[in-house]
């Protein structure tokens, strides 16, 4: 009997009990659906974070106040009882560093800004002249904060595109006066648009000189110091040197944390690996349940078709023909579930992607192979037992079966 005939028979049989077939496939539908969604989410997240971290730059080191033993994450702000990162730490690194070229200090806060009769609450970043270079964020027009501005605590501001649009309604802001956290600032530059990152609008920011920000926020400590190493390949040497210098500056205490892109990536990879295990767990449980459902129905089907099996054997079917017939029937049911699950998954992803444009769930080609493989596998594994039962029937007993 040809394969095509087997499938035809299987589909006819599946259609004979539409509801039963449909309900039986549900387990597989849910299993494949969850695999498709979770794997695609994982792939999307991988890409998203890889993007994010590569944007950070592979030769950047971030020094944060406070010590955290596990690498990778930022320390909890509440345990920040240790020595803060100071301007002199930054100057010390700048003066003594050999394996890195630039140092940037940064302080972050929020505040109210005003221009003419409009106002807006947004993020205020105090930083020095190296920021634009280190993060590869040039100004579109005007100029960025200069070393002189920082030194003399000049009240100048550089604004992002969202600020330009919302606060200035796109009129030329250069040279205009705006209010930032109560003080009057002269706008000297507009940043190039950067878009969203981690859900934050990178264009909805006002940059002011670091020293001015420290005064405004009444802070002695920097939120972080960023170091740009001479080379990405020798980042470990830079980590060592920064650690060394910072310890010296902090009288021997390692009360700070250094994060590199590598650390963040490895942390993320750990999370991704754990997630994949969870996916595997969910998938195997639902596929197991789905498979048992199929086996159950196939046993019923075999029983119902006892007479048919007897007839087929009587007219010349070999046992292997009977075995394959029922195996293909279980594979067909399972595959049907797999296809429905896959389509539902694709639909969900398409809808999700159009609703949340910032985070694109990624469809990998192998998800198709995976769903297909899973369904066939389940169909075979859980179909073998009923199919063998059918194939081993005694034809005479089968023909007598009422």
């Amino acid at each position, binding site marked *: *009997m040809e394969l095509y005939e087997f499938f035809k028979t299987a589909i006819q049989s599946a259609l004979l009990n539409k509801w039963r077939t449909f309900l039986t496939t549900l387990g597989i539908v849910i299993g494949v659906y969850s695999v498709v969604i979770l794997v695609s989410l994982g792939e999307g997240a991988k890409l998203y974070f890889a993007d994010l971290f590569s944007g950070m730059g592979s030769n950047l080191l971030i020094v944060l106040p406070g010590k955290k033993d596990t690498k990778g994450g930022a320390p909890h702000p509440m345990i920040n009882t240790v020595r803060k990162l100071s301007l002199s730490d930054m100057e010390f690194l700048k003066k003594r560093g050999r394996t890195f070229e630039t140092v940037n200090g940064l302080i972050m806060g929020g505040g109210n800004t005003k221009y003419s009769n409009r106002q807006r609450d947004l993020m205020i970043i105090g930083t020095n002249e190296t920021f634009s270079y280190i993060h590869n964020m040039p100004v579109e027009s005007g100029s960025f904060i200069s070393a002189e501005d920082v030194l003399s605590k000049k009240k100048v501001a550089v604004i992002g595109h969202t600020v330009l649009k919302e606060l200035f309604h796109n009129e030329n802001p250069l040279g205009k006066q705006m209010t930032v956290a109560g003080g009057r600032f002269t706008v000297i530059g507009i940043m190039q648009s950067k878009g969203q990152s981690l859900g934050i609008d990178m264009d909805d920011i006002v940059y002011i000189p670091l020293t001015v920000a420290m005064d405004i926020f009444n802070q002695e400590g920097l939120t972080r110091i960023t170091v740009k190493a001479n080379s990405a390949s020798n980042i470990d040497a830079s980590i060592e040197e920064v650690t060394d210098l910072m310890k010296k500056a902090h009288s021997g205490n390692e009360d700070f944390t250094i994060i590199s892109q590598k650390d963040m990536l490895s942390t993320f990879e750990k999370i991704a690996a754990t997630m994949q295990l969870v996916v595997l767990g969910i998938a195997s449980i639902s596929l197991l349940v789905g498979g048992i459902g199929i086996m159950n129905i196939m046993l019923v089907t075999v029983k119902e078709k006892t007479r048919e099996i007897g007839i087929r054997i009587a007219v*010349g079917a070999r046992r292997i023909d009977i075995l394959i017939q029922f195996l293909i029937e279980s594979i067909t049911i399972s595959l049907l579930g797999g296809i429905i699950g896959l389509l539902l998954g694709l639909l969900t992803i398409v809808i999700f992607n159009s609703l949340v444009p910032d985070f694109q769930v990624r469809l990998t080609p192998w998800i198709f192979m995976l769903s297909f493989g899973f369904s066939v596998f389940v169909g075979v594994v859980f179909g073998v037992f009923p199919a063998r039962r059918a194939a081993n029937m005694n034809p005479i007993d089968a023909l007598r079966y009422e």
Partner: protein
Amino acid sequence: MALIELKNVSKIYHLGSEDVIALNNINLKIEKGEFISIIGPSGSGKSTLMHILGCLESPTKGDYFFDGVNVKDFGDSRLAYMRNRRIGFVFQNYNLLPQFNVLSNVALPLLYCGIGSKERNRMAAEALRSANLTHRNRHRPGELSGGERQRVAIARAIVNNPDIILADEPTGNLDQKVGKEIISLFKGLNKEKNVTVVLVTHDLNVAAMARRIVRILDGEIIEDKENNIGTL
């Protein structure tokens, strides 16, 4: 050489501790082209004999030669081949697949010998014509009368041009008139296509039509006689 030869064939069923001897030391030769009727009381072993002849069961003891080859040594696929190509079985209760139409039912054996669907349908239609059943090809068995169903079953039995038709009480569920038509159908097939026919029947009038009558009692052949007044 005889088409079929049974040598000392016994069939014993084990029911718990009890042994049921369904066939006891049967010796039987059937030549090609013969028309034989088998008679005997209920439980005498007629169906058991037919099942062994039809390669649906194997003997407990003894040898079964088909065309000179001992079927006893055959594995599953060679037995399947015998049932498919060389033997056509007709049952009392038709044994058709209710979800298939008449044409598909008749074509069923052809599925198992790798014939394409067009040719299958052609052969099935031809077999149905030989069985004198036309214009019913697209019907389901449930829509047919008993006599028509048995014609479908006979068409299925002859679709692969077997050497022998084994019919186990084919008229048992039919009234006399229709039963007669079915018997004359077998008669025609035997005459025109030289198909060997073995017919189990309770109806002595039917049995008397055969040229050879085999009488079975308690699993043994008690009589195997020429019937010169037989028309078959």
